[in-house]
Each structure stands twice: as structure tokens, then as C-alpha cells.
């Protein structure tokens, strides 16, 4: 029996080796990809992913105050399932809410890399988009898209909480339309 061709998905020999788990993963993955994923699983995960965006809880500058206001009683971003988490490991979304300086740039990149895939970035406000009023300054990164890929830009200095919520909803739209 061992090594006989024709056994579906797995070589029996592989069962005895350490290759079993990767092989099984691959086989199951193929199975799901062929049958289920396109029709059933992917829409469910897509729905889940876009409806539960956990942004990173940090404040860079002025926009952080409006970011906080969006979680206040009047705007209550939690209505959309947006809950800020303090550690990047549990986040899907990095909202760059303020001016990015060169001093903080590598920390921002580290935080971005610490976030598990899939992840998104929103550049909130003019500073994160393009440097804003500090564009000419010696210490300011003119736009966070020089450091990390940005999915949604929100204009405003600072954008109102409604604008932030709108940006997040637009991101949800982007995720909905995403083709992998």
C-alpha cells in the first residue's frame, strides 16, 4: 500500500513523516478552494472581516482627539463594531491620526508589521495624507504613504468624527469589493 499511487489527496507514506500536516493542509486547502471557498466561506469571512475592524489604539496628534470623539457618546463608533485595541497583534486597522515625524517613522512601520494579516491603513487628516501644514518642516514625513501602504485617505484638518466614520465605512466597501 505504501506509496501506491492513486490514493486521493495524500500519499500514505506522508502520514508517517513530518510532512503530514503541510500535506493535509494543502489538500484540504485545495478542496476548500475548489468547492466551498468561492461560494460559501469567502463571503462569510469577508462579511466578518469588514464588520469587525479593530483599529489600533494610539494617538499621534490633533486627529487623535477627533478619533477619540468618534468613540464618544455622540458618534459611538462601536455601533459599527469598531473597538480600539491597545496591542497591534489584535488589530486589523491602523488609523494614522496625525502628523508622522521621521523620529516615529520606524516605530510606525514596526507597529504595522506587528499587525497580523489582513490589515488596512487609514490616513486620517491632511498631515497623514500629505504633511498638512507641516509639509515643509524638517522633521515631518510628507504623507504616511511613504512608509506604509494606505487604503483610505480622509481629508480634513482634522476631519470631523463623521468623516472618520465615513472613511471606515468606505474601507468596508473596499473590503466588500475586494477580489483575491
Amino acid at each position, binding site marked *: 500500500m505504501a506509496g501506491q499511487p492513486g490514493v486521493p489527496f495524500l500519499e500514505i507514506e506522508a502520514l508517517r513523516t513530518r510532512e503530514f500536516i503541510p500535506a493535509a493542509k494543502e489538500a484540504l486547502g485545495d478542496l476548500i478552494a475548489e468547492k466551498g471557498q468561492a461560494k460559501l466561506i469567502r463571503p462569510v469571512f469577508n462579511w466578518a472581516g469588514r464588520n469587525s475592524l479593530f483599529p489600533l489604539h494610539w494617538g499621534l496628534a490633533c486627529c487623535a482627539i477627533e478619533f477619540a470623539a468618534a468613540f464618544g457618546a455622540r458618534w459611538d463608533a462601536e455601533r459599527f463594531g469598531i473597538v480600539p485595541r491597545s496591542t497591534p497583534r489584535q488589530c486589523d486597522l491602523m488609523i494614522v491620526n496625525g502628523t508622522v515625524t521621521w*523620529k516615529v517613522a520606524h516605530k510606525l512601520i514596526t507597529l504595522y508589521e506587528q499587525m497580523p494579516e489582513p490589515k488596512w491603513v487609514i490616513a486620517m487628516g491632511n498631515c497623514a495624507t500629505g504633511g498638512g501644514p507641516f*509639509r*515643509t518642516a*524638517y522633521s515631518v514625513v510628507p*504623507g504616511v504613504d511613504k512608509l506604509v501602504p494606505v487604503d483610505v485617505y480622509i481629508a480634513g484638518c482634522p476631519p470631523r468624527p463623521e468623516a472618520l466614520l465615513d472613511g471606515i465605512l468606505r474601507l468596508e466597501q473596499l473590503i466588500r469589493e475586494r477580489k483575491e
Partner: protein
Amino acid sequence: MQPEDLERALGPALGPTLVGVEPFVGFAGRLRFRREGALDVFRAVHGLGFAHLSLVGGIDWVDHREVFYVAWSDDARQYVLLSTEVPANDAHLESATPVWPSADWHERETWELVDISFDHHPDLRHLLTPDGYAFHPLLRSFKLHEPEELEVKTRHV
């Protein structure tokens, strides 16, 4: 407290270190001194009751640099402005931290931004700019980016 009072109180003790006391709006006076006896000036002014140092700043006048100190007295309810000049090619001064510990961070900032070094400062490190930052942005010779120039520079990054 008036400028004359300041001069009367400080003049004999400080001698040539004290250049003069001018009036300044809303202040007890603007006291100019020579940098050689800076620590004596600080001690004397502190002795007059100006125990609270609010501000240390530097100005680059291209040929020389000015350091100014603002101190507050709780008894007189007044500020005093101290200022001294250091040559641009040899910009250093005695630190005020032994007299006013609050000068610590202000002097660090002045050192990194205006390039005025403070002798005997306990901890002269970069505060606002990253470690190893080689420029002193608040010097007049340091030019900001022009917006157009920035556009060209960053377009292909």
C-alpha cells in the same frame, strides 16, 4: 520691582559681569550680562526671589547668538528677563541647572535646536530631534523645504 531696584541690588555683587538693566514691558527688567560670570548672575537673581525659571531660549543673530532666561518671583509677582550673548563660532555657556533644576530640558532643547552648548549640564542629550541628528534647525542658515521642491523630491519615493 523696577529696573533701578534690580541694578541697585545686583550691581555691586556682580561688577563687570552685569552689562546693564533695561526696562521691559510687564517685567521687572531686562538684565544683560556677560557669559563669563553666568552662574554668579543666576545665583544672585535666584537670591532676589526669582526662584521659578520658566523659559530658556536661544536666538540666532547670525553673527552671534543670544540666550535668554525668564524667571518669576512669587514675592514680587513679576518676571525678570536675563539675556546674554555668545559668539557664533564658540557658542557655549554655563548651565543654569545647579541654580534652577527646571533649566534641564530647556537647555537640552536650546542645545539641539540653536546649537548653544551648556557646560556642566548633567545630561545634554537630544530631546526633540532623533539621536544623532546632525542639524540645528533653528539656525538662520538652516532652510526649510520649499513646497515645490518637496513635490519633486518625494514623487518617486
